[in-house]
């Protein structure tokens, strides 16, 4: 497994290093170590797929759902650790089960969706904390909660790569059904699209992205990467396809810049990645040519004058 992972990722890393070496030496120097190169590749992939998914999350108002699934992954990680399975299998199962549970409560009881999400994900998260407190050390828990991208293993990198390929393929192949379902689900139904397949497909994709991002930004902060790039891109454009590209650009650049800053300043990488993304959002909020605060004020001022 380890050997396969190395073989698959080595060419990608060398391709990435060609780009890195174009940077000024002071920046490129940080990426001469193998663990840094692995961290870089993982961050780029995670930034890209989180960026893609975040467009759907933002437009569909699924921010809380993303938060819910990311927390619900914890008991799965713990149980997989207990049974000696790869952590992503457990994570995927409990993440998917929780989102199904949320849907069932919403549909069949009088409890509204925000309360259904809140109670399901905190319950799952609590279960995870209880199991982990019994079996693992607190450093282990810290790594799951806040990410440990500098310690990423080749096999997990392979998982991130596979998740990225699957996400890209699905979004490409189902571009139109996903767009229409996000924009106007009733129209999708009227055109004979099977919207429950689209709905659960999107939720599974979200779960997969979260699981793939665990090691980079951790459970607590992954939701930031599922909201901020999409929200930033939404500030900048009125075209969906452009929003997807911009969001990927925001996701990747905050992942890379955040990783580099975390090494240079010796701070937690998950946190610094998210902070860069948040910074980019506020830049867009202020300076966006069409929807930014400054241009809006200026237009208003000019209309008054």
């Amino acid at each position, binding site marked *: 497994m380890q050997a396969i992972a190395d073989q698959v990722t080595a060419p990608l890393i060398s391709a990435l290093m060609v780009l890195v070496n174009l940077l000024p030496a002071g920046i490129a120097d940080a990426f001469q170590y193998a663990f840094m190169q692995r961290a870089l590749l993982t961050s780029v992939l995670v930034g890209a797929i989180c960026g893609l998914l975040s467009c759907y999350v933002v437009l569909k108002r699924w921010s809380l759902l993303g938060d819910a699934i990311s927390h619900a992954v914890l008991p799965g990680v713990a149980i997989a650790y207990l049974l000696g399975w790869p952590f992503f299998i457990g994570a995927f199962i409990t993440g998917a089960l929780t989102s199904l549970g949320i849907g069932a409560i919403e549909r069949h009881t009088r409890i509204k969706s925000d309360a259904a999400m809140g109670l399901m994900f905190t319950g799952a998260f609590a279960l995870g904390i209880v199991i982990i407190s019994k079996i693992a050390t607190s450093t282990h828990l810290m790594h799951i909660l806040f990410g440990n991208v500098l310690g990423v293993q080749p096999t997990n990198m392979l998982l991130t790569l596979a998740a990225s390929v699957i996400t890209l393929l699905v979004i490409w192949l189902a571009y*139109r059904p996903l767009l229409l379902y996000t*924009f106007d689900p009733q129209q999708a139904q009227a055109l*004979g699209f099977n919207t429950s397949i689209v709905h659960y497909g999107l939720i599974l994709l979200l779960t997969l992205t979260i699981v793939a991002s665990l090691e980079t930004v951790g459970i607590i902060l992954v939701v930031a990467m599922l909201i901020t790039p999409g929200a930033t891109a939404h500030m900048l454009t009125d075209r969906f396809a452009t929003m997807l590209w911009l969001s990927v650009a925001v996701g990747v650049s905050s992942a890379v810049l955040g990783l580099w800053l975390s090494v240079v300043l010796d701070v937690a990488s998950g946190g610094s990645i998210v902070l860069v993304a948040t910074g980019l959002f506020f830049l867009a909020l202020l300076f966006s040519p069409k929807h930014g605060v400054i241009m809006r004020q200026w237009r208003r001022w000019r209309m008054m004058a």
Partner: protein
Amino acid sequence: MSSDIANHAAIRVEGVYAAYQRQPVLSDINLDFPRGRWTAIVGPNGAGKSTLFRVLTGSMSPLKGELSAFGERIFHARRAGRIAYMAQREAIEWDFPISVWDTVMTGRFGHMREDPLWQRLAPSRFVHSRHTEAVRSALADVDMLDFADRHISALSGGQKKRVLLARCLAQSADILLLDEPLAGVDPPSEALILEVLAGQRKAGRTVIMVTHDMPGARRYVDHVVLINRTVRGTGSPEDMLSDARLATLAVGSSDDDLQD
């Protein structure tokens, strides 16, 4: 005899019951929407008009009962692109990053299933010309071609309605389902929408709309369905939309707190 009626009905509704969270809204709906005619669904607030509409478009499944279109199961007619739908303005997120042109193009997504695979996977500027033609002519029909590149939030209320109507026309369907196409539009847009629908009916399409606009309905439609929890009458606009008839319809519909 029944197959004879099926031949004439664009949509047939048989014994349909529908409910929101066990709260019954529609009971025992039996209806034939005549083919090639313009039907108005009329009823007081809370009568279940929108619920019936959601059952017709497929966004809500009935508790029991059957729906068919042109004698086949209605889902097949939807898949075949034979039923178009026009949303209410409130059903759309107008902040969504999409242009007028692309919004109308979403009405073609059903027909794109018949396109060759490479075309379905290529970027949207490579779509088949029959789709671009349909979008162009639909936008021209509602007089919105000049606004094709605009973002959808940069439109007035009446223009938004016309874009939604254009999306419905672009579906090139045999049946047009319209949810309150005249609600909250300015008089010029209202006149234009009614003219476009009259043209569709003349072209042999079946037009079915939910409406509150009694003068418009009296003038244009040729079949009326009165709804209040169940079918309270079907027939010509003269018979169904008389003041006396409408007064009896409103009786017993005081549960205004119910979802319309």
